[in-house]
């Protein structure tokens, strides 16, 4: 779990954001939304800037939170890889990183959600990153 760390926004440099995962309903289980609010101080930050994490590969990922009229904020989140502007994404690396980010999220959300259950689900459905 310590392999994923929240970091300050990296220098933009010659990079682009590559969209990997979109969640339209972050509050489906409200404790997930509460986790992101705590982790990225969203009650104060709001939509001002994305959150960033560094994943085990060393790649940085931007978490772009989404607001929607009439719904608690954030209602959604997008995960983008921050990659060299003109280079294609290494999909296998990104997939392993996403799996690590999901484990980090589940650990942060806490019971009844457990990393062990997530890993077991990944193994049941033969997710390569779950081993």
């Amino acid at each position: 779990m310590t392999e994923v760390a929240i970091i300050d926004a990296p220098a933009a440099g010659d990079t682009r954001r590559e969209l990997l995962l979109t969640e339209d309903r972050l509050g489906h289980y409200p404790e997930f939304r509460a986790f992101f609010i705590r982790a990225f101080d969203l009650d104060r930050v709001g939509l001002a800037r994305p959150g960033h994490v560094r994943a085990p590969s060393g790649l940085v990922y931007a978490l772009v939170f989404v607001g929607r009229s009439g719904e608690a904020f954030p209602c959604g989140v997008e995960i983008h890889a921050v990659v060299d502007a003109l280079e294609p994404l290494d999909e296998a690396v990104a997939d392993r990183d996403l799996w690590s980010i999901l484990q980090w999220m589940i650990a942060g959300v806490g019971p009844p959600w457990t990393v062990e259950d997530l890993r077991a689900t990944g193994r049941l459905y033969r997710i390569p990153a779950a081993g």
Partner: protein
Amino acid sequence: MIQDDLARTEGFRTRWPHAARYARVNGWRMHYVDEGHGDPVLLLHGNPTWGFLYRDVIPPLLQAGYRVIVPDMIGFGLSEKPPREQAHSLDGHIANLTGLVRQLDLRRLAVVCHDWGGPTGLSFAMNNPDRVRALTVMSTWAWAAPPAEFHTRVFPWRTMHAPLVGPYLLGRHNVLAGRGVYLSVVDREKFRREAQPVYEAVLPDPAARLLTWTWPRWIPLDAEARAARRFAWLEERLARSALPTLIVWGREDDVFDAATFAARFKRLLPHADGPHLVTGRHFLQEDSGAAIGALIAAFLGRLDGGGAVR
């Protein structure tokens, strides 16, 4: 592209020889099959399948002289697949189905429901009783509570469609159409050989798989659930329904187990024929399609022979 992939899938055209038809319903493009003549039978699939699920159910119905209509739910199969979760709601899917039936002006319908085809098809039937003459229910439900024990478990069900986990597992990795269905049939080798590539081919990209993790989030787990009121309405209407009904269930079903769910349908609709148990887990049509088709044809034949249509 999907059609090309399907055409390249070994044996697909033999198993699914039906012409593709399309209708604009409720603002979406819906694919359906329409074969045969006679009183219509509407075959409704659920998550994450499409009309192909009924490939072995169709021939006995055609041979018995019925017209068979098999729509693909918006978001599945060869129908349009909206890219946003907000495009999907239980009421919206009921309206989609209603749009198709009215456009085709189907009457004297036998509505056959599986999985999410149950809440949608049964709600359509309760709201359009003048068009429906009989029901068949298979591995589905029609009430808000209690949920299936399977759907309350954190491992694997709730974890599988949790925020961000759903888009990762079911979106990026297509686990419901692939391994998920595989785990919910009896003859897994036959399924892997004949059907799994077909189910996967119609959901080729993560964005196309949106409904596979959206539907699970519509299953009511408590009284605050989005669909709780619609399910309460449906149960109340069904309890007053005298429509002839056939209950068919998979003996090995461990999602909606027969002892709980088929039995509750029987209590809700005491006049129902069945439950008839066949070989099958949740996707019972994969293991017993022809037998199910014969059961439905015989049930409708008894209605027609007895003249007790309504």
